[in-house]
């Protein structure tokens, strides 16, 4: 039986019967596998970007020194380690002194990311592999400027004299929050003791940097986590940096979405070609039955054919997917890098699994149903006009949802897609009927070709509905993906704008604001877009929160208006802030992690004075905006105007960076936080991700176009036959061409229309729920999509049917 199956399969293959099925399966497995491989690659790149930000794959932050034996455990697992200790100390030079944030690093620092140094303040940095050696110190540009010192000078940290060997330009793990306003310096870890700057009880933070094999890190983390005390906390690459994490998260969602769409498209392609194949096989089956094959044997026959086909396709598609993925990463090698390039097994399993499941869900049911074909079918010219089997469609639909969920692990994406399909089906049911009615009324006024075209459309009502549903589905997926990509890239592009602030200025007093602006102008620095935010430092006194994030000095601000880029997630913003009691607005996630709820009265200790404020609303903050963002915003000033301190943010162009030294000397009391490096990191990541998104988009678009082509091809057999008969009856080429154009263009128009509306529904859900963005309607989309559909499908239909017009009709008739 298997031999017969193989023989028949070979003959079908040779005759091109299996080629569409083969192509669809190949497309399914290849696209899902390669997209998944690429997603995996991008994710790895994202993690390694995140790793750069904490200079490690995993970090333990601790307020006390770590036990010796933990390092031994890590060594036993072959994990690389480095230690960093950070403390505040006075730094003395001949011409000045300054409180600095000193970072003492061990030999192997940094494990991930790059450290860069220069020969003078605000130099362009050169990458260097290790931190300073014992006896050396690398102050940053600001410290150097405020100390009036230069390279090769000696400066004192506490009791220890150290030589300035270089200037610190960038650190991978520079804190991006506002916790460290002080200028910075880097020295060797073993010099700490000699400074005597760190006494028992003084504030010092320890960081244990780890890098290595993921499973080793996980097992170390599992061993140590139960031993952690309250001041010790793990930090993974992505929770280091809020704006980076937000960006990466959106990118990941997009990749998952795109992959899921590839799955759906693959399913559609397979179901179409399976339908065509089984229709064409009906005759074979009837004949084989006449020759005495039993239904059971026929089922076995087709089952073994499917197994053969699946094996064959797997053998080809998996290496093909690998090659495609290699090609794509090669193209992007300058933009997207990962630390390790070990191929992951999961994408292959996913791709192969998708293919096999699609085969089981889409191809097997119609194949098995073939065994039911009555042998008497051979006696008649059997009609290919079979309605789609609702049961089979339901199985396929269920399988696709299952696959999408498997792929995305997201109920949201799955339900958005279900919603899209439901919208399409509803519109379809509504529209088909109306359009046919419309057609009947306008038919008498049409030209001859259009008349026959319309008549054909009406006659093939059921088939056409299926066809429109499939065109519509494919177009909807493509439209959704394109518009998700557009709003995502737009959103990111805002972060890429040239004048995003890269310098934050602190400790500016009320009356100092004018003189600062004056100094900046004098130095030739732009003050455009510079706004001042009032700041007070305070502690949350009541309720006592059991979270280290809340139990420390906080930076607070106050404002009448909701800060730009913020949105209220719960409660209401204040209207008349001057008369009402003091209210406070807290960032939603922060409030949640502190266990604070709406309506609660909170007590803050502001410079020794206790103030009560009602928590009146929770805010969502766009962390990817790179604007000054605050966890706490109050409705009224917390301190007297003349004792308030202000912060401001401004963009400094690279060519102007050398002017910062003089500015600092002129305004010595003002602190600066230079986030240029963080910003550049974010921009680099955003550029990479935008490219990755485009790459994926192109792959999925390709898959979508192939589906359209497959579905048009599936509809062609019958039309070819008809056209050939019309030709023998003397119809001109022009007439046949116009019949086909009318048919396909109208199908395309309707498909485009419902696809546009379906895409709108899908995108609205995704935008609102998945990407946490405000919903926008894209009306140009719905106006355009019917015409896009009309042109695309009209052109495809015409192109694939052109052979009917050019080949002699007899040949066409004999072949069908």
């Amino acid at each position: 039986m298997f031999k017969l199956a193989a023989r028949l399969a070979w003959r079908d293959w040779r005759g091109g019967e299996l080629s569409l099925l083969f192509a669809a399966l190949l497309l399914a497995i290849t696209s899902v596998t390669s997209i998944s491989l690429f997603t995996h690659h991008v994710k790895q790149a994202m993690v390694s970007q995140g790793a750069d930000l904490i200079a490690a794959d995993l970090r333990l932050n601790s307020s006390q020194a770590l036990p010796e034996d933990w390092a031994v455990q890590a060594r036993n697992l072959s994990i690389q380690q480095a230690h960093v200790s950070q403390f505040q100390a006075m730094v003395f030079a001949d011409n000045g002194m300054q409180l600095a944030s000193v970072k003492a690093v061990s030999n192997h620092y940094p494990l991930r990311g790059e450290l860069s140094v220069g020969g003078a303040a605000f130099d362009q940095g050169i990458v260097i592999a290790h931190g300073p050696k014992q006896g050396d110190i690398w102050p940053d540009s600001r410290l150097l400027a405020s100390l009036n010192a230069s390279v090769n000078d000696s400066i004192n940290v506490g009791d220890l004299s150290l030589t300035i060997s270089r200037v610190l330009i960038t650190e991978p793990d520079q804190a991006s929050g506002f916790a460290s306003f002080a200028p910075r310096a880097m020295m060797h870890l073993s010099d700490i003791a000699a400074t005597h700057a760190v006494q028992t009880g003084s504030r010092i933070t320890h960081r244990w940097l780890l890098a290595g094999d993921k499973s080793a890190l996980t097992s170390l983390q599992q061993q140590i986590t139960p031993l952690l005390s309250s001041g010790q906390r793990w930090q993974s690459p992505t929770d280091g940096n809020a704006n980076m994490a937000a960006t990466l998260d959106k990118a990941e969602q997009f990749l998952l979405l795109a992959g899921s769409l590839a799955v759906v498209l693959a399913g559609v392609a397979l179901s179409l070609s399976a339908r065509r194949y089984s229709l064409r096989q009906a005759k074979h089956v009837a004949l084989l039955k006449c020759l005495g094959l039993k239904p059971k044997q026929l089922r076995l026959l087709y089952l073994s054919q499917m197994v053969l086909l699946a094996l064959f396709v797997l053998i080809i598609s998996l290496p093909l997917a690998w090659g495609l993925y290699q090609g794509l990463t090669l193209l992007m090698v300058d933009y997207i890098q990962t630390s390790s390039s070990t191929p992951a097994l999961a994408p292959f399993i996913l791709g192969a699994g998708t293919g096999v499941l699609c085969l089981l869900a889409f191809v097997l049911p119609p194949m098995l149903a073939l065994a039911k074909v009555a042998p008497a079918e051979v006696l008649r010219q059997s009609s290919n006009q079979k309605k789609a089997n609702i049961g089979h469609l339901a199985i396929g639909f269920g399988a696709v949802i299952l696959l999408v969920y498997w792929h995305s692990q997201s109920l949201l994406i799955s339900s958005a897609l279900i919603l899209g399909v439901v919208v399409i089906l509803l519109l379809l049911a509504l529209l088909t009927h109306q359009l046919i009615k419309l057609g009947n009324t306008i038919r008498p006024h049409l030209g001859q070709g259009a008349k026959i075209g319309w008549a054909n459309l009406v006659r093939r009502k059921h088939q056409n509905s299926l066809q429109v549903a499939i065109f519509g589905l494919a177009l909807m997926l493509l439209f959704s993906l394109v518009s998700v990509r557009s709003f995502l890239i737009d959103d990111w592009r805002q972060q890429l704008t040239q004048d995003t602030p890269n310098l934050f200025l602190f400790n500016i007093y009320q009356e100092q604001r004018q003189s600062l602006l004056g100094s900046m102008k004098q130095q030739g620095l732009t003050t455009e877009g510079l706004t001042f935010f009032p700041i007070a430092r305070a502690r949350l006194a009541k309720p006592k929160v059991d979270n280290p994030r809340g139990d420390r000095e906080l930076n607070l601000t106050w404002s009448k208006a909701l800060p730009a880029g913020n949105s209220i997630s719960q409660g209401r913003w204040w209207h008349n802030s001057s008369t009402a009691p003091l209210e406070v607005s807290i960032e939603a996630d922060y409030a949640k992690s502190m266990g604070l709820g709406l309506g609660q009265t909170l007590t803050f200790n502001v410079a020794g004075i206790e103030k009560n404020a009602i928590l009146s609303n929770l805010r969502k903050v766009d962390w990817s905006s790179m604007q000054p963002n605050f966890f706490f915003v109050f409705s009224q000033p917390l301190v007297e105007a003349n004792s308030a301190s202000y912060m401001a943010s401004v963009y400094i162009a690279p060519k102007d960076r050398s002017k910062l030294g003089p500015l600092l000397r002129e305004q010595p009391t003002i602190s600066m936080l230079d986030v240029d490096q963080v910003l550049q990191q974010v921009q680099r990541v955003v550029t990479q991700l935008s490219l990755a998104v485009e790459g994926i988009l192109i792959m999925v678009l390709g898959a979508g176009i192939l589906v359209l082509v497959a579905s048009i091809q599936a509809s062609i057999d019958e039309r070819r036959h008809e056209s050939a008969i019309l030709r023998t009856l003397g119809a001109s080429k022009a007439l046949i061409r116009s019949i086909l154009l009318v048919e396909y263009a109208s199908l395309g128009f309707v498909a485009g229309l419902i696809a546009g509306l379906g895409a709108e529904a899908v995108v609205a859900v995704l935008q609102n729920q998945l990407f946490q963005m405000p919903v926008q309607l894209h009306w140009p989309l719905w106006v355009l999509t019917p015409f896009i559909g009309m042109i695309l499908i009209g052109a495809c239909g015409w192109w694939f049917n052109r052979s009917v017009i050019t080949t002699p009709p007899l040949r066409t008739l004999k072949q069908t």
Partner: protein
Amino acid sequence: MSHATPFLAAQNVSQIVANPQATQAHDLHILRDVNFTIEAGQSVAIVGASGSGKTTLLGMLAGLDSPSHGQLFLAHEDLTLMDEESRAELRKHQVAFIFQNFQLLPSLTALENIMLPLEVKGTDNANALAGQYLNHVGLGQRGHHYPHQLSGGEQQRVAIARAFAAQAPILFADEPTGNLDTQTGHHIIELLFELNQQHHTTLVLVTHDVQLAQRCQRRLSLTAGQLTELVDV
């Protein structure tokens, strides 16, 4: 033969199909109360106007379709009591069929079409045997051509060769010489009767060819679904 059941027979067979657009009254009666018995080794011609139900009757005798009413016997078995599974088994060993519209598989070459019944039976030297049958019908040189490359008459000859290759004791032929010129038609008729005489194959053929009908031992005539036996005067 000691069998109580007839070798090949129809008893009170009717076939009624519902008219898709109308009520009971308009049901289409393709066959009405057909009765006859055919002995093993006989040759029988069924004649009648186009649309009189000949193809329908032949298909039923071969177990390809079930009647609305009545009983059918094939190789002493009551077809109406059998399920599709056992009817298939019976066809495999007992029946060969030449279709009016040939029913060659378009994706198979002429030779492969002929090999098909041999392969279904699991015969070893299918290729060589099929070649012989192709020679019989005078198409030895066309084995590797596909159906669409052959003329109607040539396709018919391939279909005939395929039926011969089945080596079944009962051969049904639906207008086997309909598309053939007189000379080729003669040749095919000779082959059919050779089979009938040498292997005692039972022949049941539908034909418009008077000459072919005359060579058969019996002639049955179908008129609007009703069967009568023509007796030579």
